[in-house]
């Protein structure tokens, strides 16, 4: 049977002809190569920004956001594009949930607007003369705005396309504030998520794979960290230093991964017992190889689902802090705008309501997408597909 299927052409090579004293050659995949080059470029740019320039090119938060985007390209988008069949399979399952598809489109719009919008439009500026303008197509009693930018007729001030979503009490355009707020929310949600799942996954898989003392040390540390009141730490740190988005992200990122680590560990413990792990050991794979190539990919479903459900909680945290005035006042975020409009709810309802609606739908959309991803990726539900 083995003999007659053997077709000797130039392109075939037989395993028994391999000279094991002379293997090698450089065979990086395009992805590995691109990843290497971009990480190097990124590292150089950060070092240049930190050590060689007086003024920062972009803020720390933006550097982290760039890193998150790179990670998204190389660890989500690229593999998905590489494995089209698997991607198509997941998409077929995902799209069964129509609410999740709509949510995903909405989130994509928010993401794109939030990422690129602030580069294209100017930061909203203080303009007392244009305060309290109503959104376009709506009108408000002429006594509310200081002066009406749009048409004023019969004692009503009509909204204008100059400020499509109206203005705040200090005349900032809410449409622009919302776009800038999108960036803040996306940054907080995505960067914190990246930090949390990176640390959580490494700790969780290592604890499960090495077990014994390593497991004990890591998980007991997680226990301690989980009892730590992150909220109060944030209060103290903002009191001591200038409050900033960077601070918020790092504090919540570096102290918030305990739950993910536990989740990943329990999942990885099950995977560790599978015989493909033993097969890899038997092939001579190192610990790092097995964790990287087998354990991590096989817990990724759990991680992705958990990550999608973590993002809205971070966005809400940020909005809460901004609402309480605990964040950098120069960073326009949704929570801040809601807070600034809360005194004018009876006269200028749109100031607090519009960013509130965006916040509400963003959080809701992440939850929908997370649920649908869990259904689409969870191997336990694979049978009923």
């Amino acid at each position: 049977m083995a003999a007659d299927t053997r077709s000797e052409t130039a392109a075939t090579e037989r395993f028994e002809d391999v000279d094991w004293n002379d293997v090698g050659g450089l065979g990086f995949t395009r992805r590995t190569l691109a990843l290497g080059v971009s990480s190097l470029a990124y590292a150089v740019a950060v070092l240049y920004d930190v050590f060689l320039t007086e003024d920062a090119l972009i803020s720390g938060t933006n550097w982290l956001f760039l890193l998150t985007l790179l990670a998204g390209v190389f660890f989500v988008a690229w593999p998905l594009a590489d494995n089209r069949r698997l991607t198509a399979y997941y998409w077929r399952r995902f799209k069964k949930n129509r609410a999740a598809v709509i949510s995903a489109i909405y989130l994509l719009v928010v993401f794109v607007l939030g990422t690129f919008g602030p580069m294209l439009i100017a930061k909203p500026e203080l303009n007392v003369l244009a305060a309290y303008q109503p959104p376009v197509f709506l009108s408000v009693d002429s006594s509310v705005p200081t002066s009406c930018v749009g048409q004023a007729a019969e004692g009503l001030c009509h909204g204008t396309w100059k400020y499509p979503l109206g203005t705040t009490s200090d005349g900032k355009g809410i449409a622009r504030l919302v776009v800038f707020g999108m960036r803040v929310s996306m940054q907080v949600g995505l960067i914190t998520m990246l930090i949390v799942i990176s640390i959580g996954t490494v700790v969780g898989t290592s604890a499960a794979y090495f077990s014994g003392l390593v497991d004990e040390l890591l998980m007991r540390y997680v226990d301690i960290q989980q009892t730590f009141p992150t909220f109060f730490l944030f209060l103290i740190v903002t009191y001591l230093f200038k409050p900033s988005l960077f601070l918020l992200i790092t504090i919540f990122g570096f102290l918030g991964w305990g739950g993910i680590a536990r989740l990943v560990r329990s999942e990885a413990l099950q995977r560790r017992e599978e015989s493909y792990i033993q097969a890899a050991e038997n092939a001579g794979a190192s610990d790092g190889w097995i964790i990287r190539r087998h354990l991590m990919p096989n817990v990724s479903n759990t991680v992705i689902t958990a990550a999608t459900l973590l993002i809205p909680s971070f966005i809400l945290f940020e909005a809460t802090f901004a609402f309480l005035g605990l964040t950098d006042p120069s960073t326009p975020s949704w929570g801040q705008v809601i807070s600034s409009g809360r005194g004018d709810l009876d006269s200028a309802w749109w100031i607090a309501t519009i960013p509130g609606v965006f916040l509400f739908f963003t959080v809701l959309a992440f939850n929908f997408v997370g649920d649908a991803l869990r259904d689409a990726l969870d191997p336990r539900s694979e049978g009923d597909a």
Partner: protein
Amino acid sequence: MSSDPLLSVRGLKKHYPITEGVLKKEVGRVKAVDGISFDVESGETLGLVGESGCGKSTAATSLLRLEDPTDGDIVFDGEDITEFDDTRLKSFRRRAQMMFQDPSSSFDPRMSVGESVAEPLEIHGMRDRSRRRRIVENLLERVGLSASDFDRYPHEFSGGQKQRIALARALVLNPDIIVADEPVSALDVSIQAEIISLMRDLQDEFDLAIVFISHDLGVVREVCDRVAVMYLGEIVEVADTETLFTDPQHPYTRALLSSIPTPDPTRRNEQIELTGDVPSPSNPPSGCRFHTRCPEVIPPAEFDLDQDEWRHVLDLRLRVDSGLDVEDVRSFLVAEGVANDPEAVPDDAVERELRREFDIPETLSDAAAETVLSEGLTALVSGDHDHAKQTLDEAFSTVCERDAPTLETSERGSTAACHLVDESVTVESPVTND
């Protein structure tokens, strides 16, 4: 055995500690594999058979050092692999591969099967992707699949196809030995035959040595050149397949062989039924580990007992040793309606019930043995457990319990660890303690 064997295992032990409490104090050991020795020549297939839980799989994983053995030497091609450091162990891994029992869990569901088969090549430093692909595509064709299967995922294959792929993965590094842990027991019988014939073809082509682990004696007879029978972490018999199947030396082997169903209804085998439970490997029986269940256990010289009788008497004695509660028997008799309350059950009824329970006749064929047994039973029933134990222990002891037999080679070329073999005597004859 002209030159040194390819693989030589000597006194391999794998014990798992049983720990208790926070401080992980060792309170006992599960002796999964307890001192096994065998050789494998290159190009030979050695079968390792035994019941579930007898340590076959542990033997496989420890002889490949997937788990570090507790003790013993494993000499592969002249070098002791138990002393290898990481680098040398890795080059040993290239020459010794393993096939797993469960085809559904032995492939990473996130990797295409091609990547899985190519993984060992990559681990051992072949970084050229297209070369790996060429080799694996060629290999997939040679195990009866097609090159285009490279990009498919494990769940798209049947169990038999997956075992073909597993064979490809085991072969891809061109090893000298493959340890196959129940490679066909999860498959349908018709598929089993295909995989087995594929393994044979490949073995002939590449002069592979195979350690074939199975509980299925039918398959083992098909595949193996020699067979080692394991019981409770020890090898009890090693022989050429033909010798083992036609002339088994060890009573355990005979019991295993009698359990193979025969398709011919007119030639129904005499079924040998094993009594008693499989002992726990954390506390294996003394002497010959099989003596608690052995149908041919050697009777004491001073009595002339029928073999069946003796087995049942010994069963009773061992039960008394491990603590037989007479009160339970009384309660049982109350439930049967013999008396109204346990105290009122007459002693002779309890004795009768005990004899019935252990299949011991009303009177033993040997008068002296009967006297001792009655004395023991009376003591037992009257509540004097220690006296009963002592009486029975003194009279009904066997060489099988006292001394562990060593592997002895019989004149027929098979090697068995049994006191019956070195004496080559019939069961009924008295056996002197050597």
